[in-house]
């Protein structure tokens, strides 16, 4: 059975990650980069500090300069980032990119890329989606052998940090119809990058490949298997982020209804609000367990990992919707203002829920994996 209790080391890491995000990357940092229309969409200085803290290399094996902390530990960092809506390359680079290179890359590629990622000097992205809703089986981008490598033709969308990544891992179909993973350098010929600022003030990009040179990431034939694992890892860590986001939105909402007065009384004394808050508390408790089970399963290499990941993502996405919808409703009019942070939580909840499969995608996958 998966481990469901945090040990002392994990609790210390959780504290330090929460302190770091609250100090260095709080919600007002998101507002700053948004209002400044920052070209990167995040602070490179803060990312350098995150690298120094070991967060950038949390999932990188020690032999490649990382901390090799594992998924439960990295999930705690993602949860802290979710609480603070911290904009950073943590997800695109340190979770998706690192996992793709670690699982699919050749030894030489790992030695080339991973140490620089751990130092905070190289940013990565994973380009998978071609359709507006997550549908990883749909791969029309083509990889054609050319010399020692390949050329890519096609387009990807919703590529987190695609506009700043130094290396992009791309899923594409080879002439025999198999899906493999390919590595593209930023600025490569025939690569067009269109930055799209999203509702959460973060960045995703549309990437167009017009005969773009690429190399295979490791063995092309093993790419599809590695990609499936990377997508599970990504979904599990987004679930951890959604957990942090839901907890913070919930705690802020409870604090608000415990001070707001109407009819001469604190509105938190109304049973109609209390019962909805108590229900939301229970739902978030379920998300905590599902997220921890998914991350533990990843660390243990459990065969139940895909099932537990879909459980976590479906539940985390569903409850983040509820937490942010209730958050705005219970804040009332001020919840609709840009001045209050609660709206920013809703605006992050939806894209994070959709990325790598929303509640419906993962509920369907869960049912299929259960055998029905």
């Amino acid at each position, binding site marked *: *059975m998966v481990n*469901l*209790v945090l040990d002392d080391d994990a609790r210390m890491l959780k504290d330090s990650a929460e302190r770091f995000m609250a100090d260095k990357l709080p919600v007002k940092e998101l507002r700053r980069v948004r209002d400044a229309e920052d070209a990167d969409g995040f602070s490179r200085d803060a990312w350098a500090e995150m690298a120094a803290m070991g967060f950038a290399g949390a999932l990188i094996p020690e032999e490649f300069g990382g901390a090799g902390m594992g998924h439960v530990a990295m999930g705690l960092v993602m949860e802290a980032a979710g609480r603070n809506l911290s904009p950073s390359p943590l997800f695109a680079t340190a979770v998706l990119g690192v996992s793709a290179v670690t699982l699919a890359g050749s030894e030489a590629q790992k030695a080339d890329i991973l140490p620089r990622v751990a130092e905070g000097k190289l940013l990565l992205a994973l380009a998978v989606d071609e359709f507006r809703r997550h549908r990883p089986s749909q791969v029309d981008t083509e990889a054609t052998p050319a010399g020692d490598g390949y050329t890519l033709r096609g387009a990807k969308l919703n590529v987190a940090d695609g506009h700043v990544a130094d290396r992009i891992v791309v899923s594409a179909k080879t002439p025999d119809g198999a899906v493999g993973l390919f590595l593209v350098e930023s600025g490569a010929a025939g690569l067009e990058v269109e930055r799209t600022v999203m509702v959460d003030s973060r960045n995703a990009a549309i990437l167009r490949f017009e005969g773009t040179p690429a190399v295979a990431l490791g063995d092309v034939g093993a790419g599809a298997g590695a990609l499936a694992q990377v997508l599970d890892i990504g979904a599990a860590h987004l679930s951890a982020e959604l957990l942090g986001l839901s907890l913070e939105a919930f705690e802020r909402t*409870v604090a608000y*209804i*415990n001070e707001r007065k109407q009819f001469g009384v*604190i509105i*938190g*004394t109304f*049973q109609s*609000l*209390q*019962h909805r*808050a*108590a*229900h939301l*508390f*229970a739902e978030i*408790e*379920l*998300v*905590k*367990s*599902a997220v*921890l*089970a998914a991350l533990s399963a990843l660390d243990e290499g459990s065969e139940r990992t895909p099932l537990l990941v879909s*459980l976590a993502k*479906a*539940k985390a996405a569903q409850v983040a919707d509820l937490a942010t919808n209730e958050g705005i409703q219970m804040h009332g009019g001020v919840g609709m203002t840009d001045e209050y942070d609660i709206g920013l939580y809703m605006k992050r909840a939806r894209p994070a829920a959709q990325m790598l499969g929303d509640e419906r995608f993962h*509920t*369907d996958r*869960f*049912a*299929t994996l*259960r*055998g*029905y």
Partner: protein
Amino acid sequence: MFDLEDFRADTRAWLEENCPASMREPAREDADRCWGGRNPQFKSEDQRLWMERMAERGWTAPEWPTEYGGGGLSKEQAKILREEMGRIHARSPLDSFGIWMIGPALLKYGSEALKKQHLPPIVRGEIRWCQGYSEPGAGSDLAGLQTRAIDHGDHYIVNGQKIWTSYANKADWCFCLVRTDPDAKKQLGISLVLFDMATPGVETRPIKLISGASPFCETFLTDVRVEKSQLVGEENKGWTYAKYLLTHEREMISGMGRTASGDKALWELVADAAGMDADGKLDDPMLRTDVARWDLDAMAFALTSERINAEAKAGQGVGAASAMLKYYGTELNKRRYELAIAAEGADAMVWEGQAHKGGALPRAWLRTKANSIEGGTTEVQLNIISKNILGLG
């Protein structure tokens, strides 16, 4: 560590030897459950043997001290026993409000004399207990109970009426909340007393429920003499003990949200009824979606029960977690049965007749509606979460 492995091997061997084959499948109906008592009703010789063999080792109450007849097992050993019983799908040898409720309360709050008197017969399944809590005017507002106990020196005289007393008509003894101080604030004038159901003045009347069954009774108490020696803990401190017992009850009821070992998963029941399509999916997309949403919640809930138990053992527990588990577990169980009858359609509406096991499914479905009422309603649990965990109001 080595000792625990030995214990597991010994337990496995003993269970192999002593658990009759017919006791290695889930209880299908009420008669499959063994309740013991002065006039025990055993459905089979195997059922009697199984209870007696387990009771002999104290394994009907595995973690109680051996001096009171219990198994004296550590938490780790008790977990191994549960796991080994689960492995062979062994049925509970004895269902008992004595083991689940009053026993733990006596261990925590009872005098040495009360423990010595009552605990060993509970372990042996010789005395069956019932719970005198709710009254016609005191349901969710339990502390408003009016059953009065008047002090007569060495004994009390008790008058009043209890309701929803589970199996009172079959029970031998009652643990009962009574008002000993009518002038104190309502929570401060309550005491917990024990009496024999054969005492003159105790009358029970079963209540027929919408499921057709009568597991609950009205219990009438008219000038019932209760010895002072049968007062649990201190006079007027009964509310403290009652809350402790309610926590136990909530934990017990919340377990209903989990699927018992050996039971079919909900989706398998639905698949039997609705069929599968050529792609191996449930042959009704709307039902499949509803089942999947339930299944997700049920799995996340089972993980949550496990996590909260593990955290409690590691000293990281959150108080009032039992209210959350009770709330969510009972609502899940109701959803489970709604889906089961939806899948079975008209077959699930058959109330009598051999082909449909005498309406077992609709009766079970109706029974679940009490889950979110008994042991503190859903609304009371939500109040507890709001006040004790969230600090609202």
